[in-house]
C-alpha cells in the first residue's frame, strides 16, 4: 500500500516537474487556493514520509502563515513566534513517519503548534517569575525588563489601542480558553475544527469559548465603563 503511494507521489512530484512547478505557483495564493487540500493529502504525506524535500517545502509554504499567526497570538512576541513556527515544522519533519492519518494533516500541525506555543509561553512566564524572585534577593537591584504591550501587525491604526487591551486580556486567559478563543476568532476555525484540534467535544469547545468571553468581558469592563464616563 505504501509502495503504491510512493509511486503515485513520485509521479506527481518528479515524473512531471511542470505539474509540480505549476502547483508551486499556487502556493503564493493560499487564500484563494489551498494546495494541500487540492493535492491529495495522502500523496503529500507519502512524499514526506519518503523524505522528499520538495514535498516538505510545499508543506511549509502552505502552512507557515497560519502556523505563525496562531503562534504569534499565543506567545505574543514576533521572534518567539518564528521560533515556535520553526520548531513545529522540525517536529513535523522528525515525526511524519509516525503520522497514521487518524486526523487531517492540518489538524495535526495545528495541534503541534498550540502545544509548542503554550510550552514556550509557560517557559517564558516561569523565567519571568524566577527573574523577579532572584531580583528580590540579588545584590544588584536591576529593574526587570518588561516587554512592550503586544500589537498584532495586522491591526489597523485606529483600532490599535482597543486591540492592544483585547490582546492583553487574551494573554491572561487560562491556556485551554486561550487556545479555543484564538483558533475560533483569529484562525477562523469552526467549532468542529477547534474540537478536533483540541481533541475535545464540540460542546466542550462551546463551553470553553463561553467562559473565555465571560473572562474577557470581566477584564475589559473597567476600561469600557471608564470610556463611557463624561
Amino acid at each position: 500500500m505504501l509502495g503504491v503511494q510512493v509511486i503515485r507521489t513520485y509521479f506527481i512530484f518528479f515524473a512531471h516537474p511542470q505539474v509540480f512547478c505549476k502547483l508551486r505557483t499556487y502556493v503564493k495564493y493560499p487564500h484563494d487556493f489551498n494546495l494541500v487540500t487540492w493535492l491529495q493529502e495522502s500523496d503529500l504525506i507519502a512524499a514526506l514520509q519518503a523524505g522528499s524535500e520538495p514535498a516538505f517545502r510545499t508543506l511549509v509554504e502552505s502552512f507557515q502563515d497560519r502556523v505563525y499567526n496562531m503562534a504569534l497570538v499565543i506567545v505574543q512576541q514576533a521572534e518567539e513566534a518564528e521560533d515556535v513556527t520553526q520548531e513545529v515544522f522540525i517536529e513535523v519533519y522528525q515525526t511524519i513517519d509516525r503520522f497514521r492519518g487518524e486526523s487531517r494533516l492540518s489538524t495535526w500541525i495545528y495541534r503541534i503548534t498550540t502545544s509548542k506555543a503554550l510550552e514556550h509561553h509557560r517557559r517564558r512566564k516561569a523565567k519571568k517569575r524566577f527573574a523577579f524572585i532572584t531580583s528580590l534577593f540579588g545584590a544588584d537591584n536591576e529593574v526587570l525588563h518588561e516587554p512592550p504591550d503586544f500589537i498584532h501587525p495586522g491591526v489597523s491604526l485606529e483600532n490599535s489601542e482597543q486591540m492592544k487591551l483585547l490582546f492583553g486580556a487574551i494573554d491572561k486567559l487560562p491556556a485551554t480558553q486561550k487556545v479555543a478563543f484564538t483558533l475560533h476568532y483569529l484562525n477562523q476555525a469552526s467549532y468542529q475544527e477547534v474540537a478536533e484540534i483540541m481533541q475535545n467535544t464540540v460542546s466542550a469547545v462551546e463551553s470553553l469559548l463561553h467562559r473565555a468571553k465571560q473572562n474577557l468581558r470581566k477584564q475589559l469592563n473597567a476600561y469600557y465603563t471608564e470610556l463611557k464616563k463624561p
Partner: protein
Amino acid sequence: MNPSDQHEKWESLFEQLKAIEPARPRPFFYTRLHARLQAWQEPSAVLPWWLRKPGYALGALGLLIGLNVSVALSSDWAKDRPAETDQFTYEGFVSEYQLNRQGLYADE
C-alpha cells in the same frame, strides 16, 4: 443598555478579530528553517548513530568490561603463573638468590 445589546456589543468587538490581516513570518522563512534543520542533522554525520544514543554506548561499554573481566577470571593465565615467593622472608631471600641454605650458616 439591556443584556442582549451588551452581548451584541461584546460579540462585535470579538468579531473584529476576524477582520485582522493575518501576520506572516519574515521573508525567506524556509531558508532559515532549512539551515536549522541542517544544523540539527549535522551531528549525525560526525558521530555514528550508536554514539548519539547514550543507552547503547553505555551498554556496549558495560559489555566490553564484562567480557574482559570474565576472560581474566576464566583463563588459565592466573593459574599458569608461578607462585610468587615472598621476598621479605628468609625463604624468599634464599630462593631469590639461589643460595644454599646450609652455606649461610656454615660458620656457626
